[in-house]
């Protein structure tokens, strides 16, 4: 038996206890999704761009080893120090060794889902290093001692009153003030002091260009730039799949990224880091952590095309109503549910089942990843490997038996109808998960089987 971890349905149940918050979460994300639609519709070539991006990424995947070597060579020529990390542990150790070399115990960090995946903050804190997240949403969840619940909108699950309370406790703002403008100004002052005093800044990477050895970091707040340009050392951490072949391809991806993410035409800052400043040290850490393994899984390798826009989460009816934390993974939602089982099939076996397979995620994906198909395929792999969630397994075995025994199927149907008609309280209660947040349907007067038998005779067929 493997260790028992809280699974998606249990964690979603917890989130669902506050119905008002669920509705608000649902509506807020749908509003972001609608903004995405509006932005996409302004470009007549939107579908061509998606195809193009998907094809470029496919070429990247099919030549990834060559592009990695080319990128390394050019980055070294540019004066960037290149490190390779096979897994999260090695990534964290490399970061620590750079801090140690400079005798630094305090750093500022810009948003990086890779460092979340590697649990870098926890690791560094245990090593006595203070990490300050500088993206406002990330700083908020950091103060709340929570992980981000969304890759683009890290504190989308939090109400402004809760944020006001956190700032009152940690930053000394007046109690009861929950005005976003006021709170942002307070965070600006608090973080400016950190930017000006920290010697090492860490950032993520949105795109790295093999042709030139440069990397691009996109933010709206400017926190990556404030960190990197004011620090003596800039460490950039990236998954190996972030490469693109040519600089001109940035034109394709930057057009798609923010329109898909928030509906903006582009992020406020799309910064191209090619060489360190004369007085600065620049490092890049290339991280595998299971990506080469996913590349070998034919059915799932397309997931490595992901550019982390979050569109699949904003549109997902399950994500919107269960919250990012219910996915217990750095990357939540549909794409996270494909990436997570690659990291650990046992621990994340529940996630591909946290989907209605409605296909909305695949429809909005800017690089045309077949997300819902991959979720469906993961279910089959997980069941075959013996990792299916227990309740799902029992239910599926029950269904398999019922569907392969016609007499039992008819009897079960009749019994169900009889129960719903004569003793509705047997199904309209909280023990029945289908009753939650919905009314049970009126049972039909007769089954399809009975209706068909009768009508076939009346129509004189057979």
């Amino acid at each position, binding site marked *: 038996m493997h260790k028992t971890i809280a699974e998606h349905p249990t964690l979603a149940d917890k989130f669902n206890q506050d119905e008002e918050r669920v509705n608000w979460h649902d509506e807020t994300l749908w509003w972001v999704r609608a903004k995405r639609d509006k932005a996409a519709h302004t470009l007549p070539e939107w579908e*061509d761009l998606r195809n193009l991006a998907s094809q470029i990424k496919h*070429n990247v995947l099919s030549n990834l080893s060559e592009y990695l070597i080319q990128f390394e060579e050019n980055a070294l020529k540019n004066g960037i120090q290149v490190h*390779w990390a096979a897994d999260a542990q090695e990534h964290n150790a490399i970061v620590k060794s750079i801090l140690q070399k400079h005798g630094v115990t305090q750093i500022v960090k810009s948003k990086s889902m890779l460092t979340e995946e590697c649990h870098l903050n926890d690791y560094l804190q245990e090593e006595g290093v203070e990490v300050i997240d500088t993206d406002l949403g990330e700083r908020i969840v950091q103060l709340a001692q929570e992980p981000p619940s969304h890759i683009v909108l890290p504190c989308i699950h939090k109400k402004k009153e809760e*944020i006001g309370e956190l700032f009152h406790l940690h930053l000394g703002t007046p109690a009861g003030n929950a005005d976003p403008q006021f709170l942002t100004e307070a965070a600006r002052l608090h973080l400016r002091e950190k*930017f000006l005093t920290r010697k090492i800044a860490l950032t993520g990477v949105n795109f790295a260009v093999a042709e030139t050895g440069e990397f691009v970091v996109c933010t709206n707040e400017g926190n990556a*730039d404030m960190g990197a340009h004011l620090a003596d050392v800039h460490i950039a951490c990236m998954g190996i799949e972030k490469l693109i072949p040519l600089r001109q391809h940035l034109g394709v991806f930057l057009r798609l990224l923010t329109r898909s993410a928030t509906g903006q035409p*582009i992020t406020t800052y799309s910064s191209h880091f*090619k060489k360190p400043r004369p007085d600065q040290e620049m490092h890049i850490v290339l991280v595998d952590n299971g990506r*080469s393994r996913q590349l070998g899984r034919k059915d799932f390798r397309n997931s490595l095309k992901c550019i982390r826009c979050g569109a699949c989460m904003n549109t997902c009816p399950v994500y919107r109503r269960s919250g990012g934390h219910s996915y217990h993974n750095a990357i939540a939602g549909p794409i996270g549910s494909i990436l997570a089982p690659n990291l650990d099939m046992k621990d994340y076996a529940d996630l591909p089942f946290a989907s209605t397979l409605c296909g909305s995620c695949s429809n909005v994906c800017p690089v045309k990843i077949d997300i819902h198909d991959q979720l469906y395929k993961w279910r089959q792999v997980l069941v075959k490997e013996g990792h299916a969630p227990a309740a799902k397994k029992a239910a599926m075995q029950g269904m398999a038996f019922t569907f392969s025994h016609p007499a039992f199927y008819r009897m079960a149907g009749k019994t169900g109808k009889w129960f719903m008609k004569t003793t509705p309280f047997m199904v309209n209660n909280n023990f029945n998960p289908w009753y939650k947040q919905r009314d049970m349907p009126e049972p039909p007067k007769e089954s399809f089987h009975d209706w068909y038998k009768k009508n076939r005779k009346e129509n004189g067929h057979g």
Partner: protein
Amino acid sequence: MAMGSREKILEAVKRNQPENTPLPTVPFFEPPFTDSVRKFSEVVQAIGGEVHQVSSYAEINTILKKEFGTKTIFSSAKELAELVQTGLDYKNAHAFADLELAVVEANLAVAENGAVWVTEDLIQERALPFIAQHLALIIPAETIVPTMHEAYGKIGTLDYGFATFIAGPSKTADIEQSLVLGAHGPKSLLVFLIRPL
């Protein structure tokens, strides 16, 4: 040890990567607008910036003097020398911490998204356009291109240490999706479009 991981990763990637598929060429996409200057101005305003069409640096001088008066201003543009504060150590990025306004000449701009391309050689310090409380960008109107594809066409494989697209003032919507201008960087953005008479 690091060498070991490099080989291990490259070997695993090579073993697992699919059969080669060719790199597609990026086609020319006709923009759905004809007046790029107008489109650029509209988008910059929509993302929180302010656009001034001017015919000379003298006009920029006048506008900035009126809006910023005696507040600390820095610019590497010779034509704006009389606005620039003297006696500060502008070789050190940290010295910009209390700067009220940075005025930066830009290379080119993109109509479809209001982004302005600035390379390192046009700013004294990389931090300059981020650390100032307010930012002004100066763009010759004829350098505005319709889309990102044309922008990268012009940028080509140019060598630089650092370059960035700037689209509007620094912003965040992390608190209940309420848009707030001035997260860490400039709270406002002024764009001067120079169109000689």
